[in-house]
């Protein structure tokens, strides 16, 4: 058995996404929202891609969405994920519009399908970082 646990890559927030990770640490999902057109976007940048305004704030979203598409990793690309295969990486379309990549956890890959409803949960990496992941919503 492996005695050494190889750590998974730790997110290294870019300056423009720091507020996203600060909110995640508090178990909130917050995305940049434009003060002018009111739309959300992701990943965080300093300019609204909908109207090019630079006036925005990070605002909480519902954390609910659906699976637009997904893949299941069988190959181990990095040793840190050797214990996880097969695992699912999904493209989540949030109810507020933006899409983001995450894992679907708490379910067998065979049970995952496009359009399933999901909601955010937080996986504490350490005291600085919590990683937003998703589970299937109760029907």
């Amino acid at each position, binding site marked *: 058995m492996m005695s050494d646990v190889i750590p998974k890559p730790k997110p290294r927030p870019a300056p423009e996404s720091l507020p996203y990770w600060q909110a995640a640490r508090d178990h909130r999902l917050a995305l940049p929202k434009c003060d002018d057109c009111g739309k959300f976007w992701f*990943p965080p940048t300093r300019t609204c891609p909908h109207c090019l305004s630079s006036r925005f704030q990070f605002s909480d979203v519902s954390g609910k969405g659906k699976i637009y598409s997904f893949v299941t990793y*069988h190959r181990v690309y*990095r040793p840190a994920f050797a214990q996880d295969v*097969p695992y699912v*990486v999904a*493209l989540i379309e949030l109810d507020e519009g933006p899409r983001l990549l995450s894992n679907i956890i708490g379910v067998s890959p065979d049970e995952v399908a496009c359009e399933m409803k999901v909601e955010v949960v937080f996986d504490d990496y350490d005291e600085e970082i919590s990683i937003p992941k998703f589970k299937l919503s109760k029907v």
Partner: protein
Amino acid sequence: MISDINPARELRDTCAIVGTATSRLGRVPGVSSLDLLVEAIRNALDDAGLNPSDVDGVLCRGPDESYSHHQLVAERLGINARFSTTLTNGGASQIMSVAIAVMAIRFGLAKTIVCGFGRDTWSRTHSSEEARVRNETRPESMLAREFGPEYGYFGATAAHAFGATRHMHLYGTTRDHFGEIAVAFREHALRNPDASMKKPLSIGDYHAGRLIVAPFGMYDCSLRSDAAGAVIVTRSDHAKDLKQPPVLIKGFGFQNNTRGWFADDNMVVTAAKQAGEAAYAMAGLGPRDVDTAQIYDCFTYMVLTQLEDYGFCKKGEGGDFVASGALRLGGALPCNTSGGQLSEAHCEGMLQIVEGVRQMRHTYPENRQVKDAKIALISGHGGNQVCHSTLILGRA
């Protein structure tokens, strides 16, 4: 008036490909990507009956980290170039090089341009145990900072597999359909002595292959190759005096869905749609006129969705289209007749151009030649899955 410029009138058939060749393909240890490319260019010049001093333009590309690549190539060819640069549209760059060559030549910026691409991808990861380990244990500082690695999201296989899953969901496409693409191209590779893959592949073998990132298994993925290819472009009226039957450049088109592969429905309706429409318009042709297609096959699914986007069948009917045997030599649309990136060698679309030219020359033995082929459509796809180029070639 500038507004009157129309690609069909100004550019169609004005230029031709007069030389083409590859380097050694597959596993060529100890040879850099630059030297592979120079090997391909030298062979292409021989093919055309030209000397390096006849070339006054270089549009080349190699591994993404190579700086001022075209300068390094021209230096090795021992020439100064009037018109010379490197593109950065990934697998869409190679067709774009040919198109830029046509525009430059048509408007008097150069006379004869060499376009090429070379890589040493097999050697980088397989030539030694050290190379393999270096590849698999790249430091974290080389990964994306966030929004990917923490979820175990790595590699182009997964990015394209997202499109495959969505297509399967929307249209009932199956792995049997993807498998038929892998099997058909392997069958073509067996007819090509230069192809990397030498063993037959059955649909049973396809399903028995280990899964990589589902829905893709190992036979859905293109090869890691050492490979280079080159073509030489010049004016059609100049081409008549050269060694080979010229192959006319009839049309090209481009689309870059730079909002992103994950935006809109770009992973199921790709940039091939608008790129193809533009190329058809320039050539004055449509999908029914195409005798053979050389499609950018980084992954099986990408062939299926591009066939739809190019109008060879309707969106969502790609599975039935490939299941009909259409892609095979002798089928309705012989496709990737050299074996493609799945079974010949992966050279970021450059070998698709080489094969399209060769099919238009009618110099292949009967078992490789698409009978009476007069029009070839070639695709290039890349960048972050969003850049697309289309080239239409015709027999002169």
